[in-house]
């Protein structure tokens, strides 16, 4: 079994193979690469470089995509709830 390293993915600690690339990790997580952005230690990666970038112990990886969101902010407005006019 290959050696493992610990990295951070979206803020959470995670083990991965010592020889894994960003592309390997995305496949392991079953994340389709279209419409995602990947930031490795604050550097935004080009999609074509996912398979060429190897991961190292302590790397901080952020994987982002599009969610519902509007004519502005979501959480704060949602927390207040909606008040329907009678």
């Amino acid at each position, binding site marked *: 079994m290959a050696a493992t390293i610990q990295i951070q993915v979206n803020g959470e600690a995670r083990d991965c193979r010592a020889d894994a690339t960003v592309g390997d990790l995305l496949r392991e997580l079953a994340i389709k690469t279209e*419409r995602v952005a990947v930031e490795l230690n604050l550097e*935004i990666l080009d999609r074509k470089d996912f398979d060429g970038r190897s991961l190292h112990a302590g790397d901080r990886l952020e994987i982002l*995509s599009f*969610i*519902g*969101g*509007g004519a*502005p902010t979501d959480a704060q407005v949602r927390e207040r709830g*909606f008040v329907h006019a009678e």
Partner: protein
Amino acid sequence: MQNDPLIIAGREFQSRLWVGTGKYKDFAETKKAIEASGADVVTVAVRRVNITDRSKENLLDYLDPKKYIILPNTAGCYNVEDALRYARLARAAGVSDLIKLEVLGDERTLFPDTAGLIEAARILVKEGFIVLPYTNDDPIVAQKLVDVGCPAVMPLAAPIGSGLGIRNPYNLKIIMEMIKVPIIVDAGVGTASDAAFAMELGADAVLMNTAIAGAKDPIAMAEAMKYGVYAGRLAYKAGRIPRKLYATASSPIEGML
């Protein structure tokens, strides 16, 4: 008024109602409401992918990219650095250079930090983004956003999600007269007459989310907004009569007994 496209930075938009995709019950409702609104531009936020539960569906599985122009935003960013980071991530995740730029100044009002907004807009325009900034109803700020290269400006009607309607029609009217790029009224409308009013003032489009998503029947409200925007646009182009204090008879006096 069959062919009345809105053109921004050389891109043609068929609908003058743009909608957000937040706060709906589920993706099916989101999709139905967007279809009922007739909008061809939909705004989305950029957030972390849920890596622990991969069974969760993605909003974009419900929105045909051939049918809709996806407009990512920088919602939730309270400083220039965060807004730049999210804009760049949105471009990396997406297929276009469009960004709805938000730099917020205060959590309670969600009013924009206009100094930060202008700075972020200047940087992103230089990086090749098509920057559509969410701004205050301040004509001077609107002009500065145009000066740094924004091809459209999106002033608020009222605070985000407030449903207060057009709070300052006179400022919006000044913006529409002063600013030579398309004006999209963004945020604060509550119902269809608010959308119609914005268009009657001369807005080129209206962007909204909560007014539809928060309605008791979002799909019916989406349709109402479609007609509100359409009626307001028609009335603006038709040219309204001037307001007069006293009556002007519509029927002739001749022929009376």
